[in-house]
């Protein structure tokens, strides 16, 4: 069990700056994020897109913003728990016990939800009965490619993940690659490679087809795919892999007893606290009259929530407001010289 002054859920810009604010006022914190990298939507959805409304930064991309925020955290020692999703938040006296899907657990007086629109999860197939085969014959990510050796694998999708795996698995499996339209959106070199392998029949290409039906009892035996003109083809297959990108799902947050309206969590505007004492929500996921879904609003909300955390983390100390320009204590924490 990890003890910390505050646990932050979400390593997007708001979560990162909230961590900065916590460390600045002398609190420690840990950050959990379901993605395998730091940056949240900025890094997952628009790493290359320019942002124009970060105060004092005329223009920067999602990736640059993330890197700058990470740099700003450099003076501090912060543990990131990536590829982990917080599943459970339970009260225990005046503390919260937080558990992730990987079994990591925390005890903390403060939980700050900076979860954006929820956690990123793979987009799944929508055909009937897909749940039944999930994690057995239907997979959305690959942990061990050796299980496919000598088998027939049907890969759906047209982006880099689908293409990369089609190329890789064509070495020792029968690969069907099915995509809903003519063009692929992967790197040109990979697209060329796929077409080359299709020519030599190492990959069977089915363009303008989508999954229509899964057939099989305990595992998939064959599938029906359908094209735009409703023409159906039946493919024998052992595995079905779907690579349709990630979607955001509110997920377990819905079960923590918080007031939720339209996928956002209601908070006050003094502490950004939810209806549960010691649980805060900041950034895109919080909701209050006048809420703007801007990164700069998340920074403000995180700064105030961090101050609110102080009271619960150090009940016997008084929080004193200080500026980074003049405070010796803050400069010490930052590891910079005082004048």
């Amino acid at each position, binding site marked *: 069990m990890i003890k910390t002054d505050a646990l932050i859920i979400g390593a997007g810009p708001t979560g990162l700056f909230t961590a900065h604010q916590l460390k600045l006022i002398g609190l420690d914190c840990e950050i959990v994020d379901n993605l395998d990298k730091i940056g949240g*939507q900025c890094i997952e*959805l*628009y790493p290359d*897109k320019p942002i124009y409304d970060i105060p004092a930064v005329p223009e920067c991309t999602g990736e640059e913003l993330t890197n700058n925020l990470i740099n700003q955290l450099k003076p501090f020692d912060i543990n990131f728990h990536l590829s982990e999703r917080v599943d459970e938040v339970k009260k225990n006296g005046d503390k919260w016990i937080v558990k992730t899907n990987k079994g990591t657990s925390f005890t903390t007086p403060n939980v700050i939800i900076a979860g954006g*629109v929820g956690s990123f999860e793979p*987009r799944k197939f*929508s055909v009937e009965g897909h749940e039944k085969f999930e994690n057995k014959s239907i997979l959305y990510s690959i942990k061990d490619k050796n299980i496919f050796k000598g088998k027939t694998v049907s890969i759906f*999708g*047209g*982006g880099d993940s689908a293409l990369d795996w089609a190329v890789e698995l064509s070495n020792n499996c029968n690969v069907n690659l099915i*995509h*809903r*339209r003519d*063009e692929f*959106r992967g790197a040109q070199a990979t697209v060329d490679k796929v077409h080359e392998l299709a020519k030599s029949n190492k990959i069977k290409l089915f363009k303008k087809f*989508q999954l229509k039906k899964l057939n099989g009892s305990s595992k998939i035996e064959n599938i029906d795919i359908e094209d*735009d003109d409703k023409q159906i083809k039946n493919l024998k297959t052992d595995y079905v892999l779907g690579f*349709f*990108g990630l*979607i*955001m*799902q509110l997920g377990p947050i819905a079960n923590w007893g918080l007031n939720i309206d339209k*996928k956002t969590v209601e908070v006050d505007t003094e502490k950004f606290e939810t209806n549960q004492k010691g649980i805060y929500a900041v950034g895109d996921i919080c909701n209050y009259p006048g809420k703007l*879904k801007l990164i700069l609003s998340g920074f403000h909300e995180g700064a105030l929530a961090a101050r609110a955390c102080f009271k619960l983390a150090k009940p016997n100390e008084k929080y004193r407001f200080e500026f980074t320009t003049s405070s010796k204590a803050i400069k010490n924490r930052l590891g910079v010289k005082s004048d």
Partner: protein
Amino acid sequence: MAKITYIEHNGTNHTVDVQNGLTVMEGAVQNNIPGIDADCGGGMACATCHVYVKEDWFNKINKKSEGEDDMLDQAYEPKKNSRLSCQIIVSDDLEGLIVDMPEKQT
């Protein structure tokens, strides 16, 4: 301004006036019409404002933006007449536009 009709998957109709310059997505969100999530807020980064545009309208409205098809690959049940509603800008010419919404966005 244009009158736009949004049809939910269950058949419920919503007809609203949407100002020129807004997107079809914004027209739905600002009028609290269910069925369009628009998680990324119109950045063409999430495919949760996915709609089906009736055939006769599909060829009349602006063409797909660069990269829109890439995002539509990730939409829920994309079809030939799929569009991201954040990429359709409203003008007087869109008077009477009808869009169908998918069963769900995620």
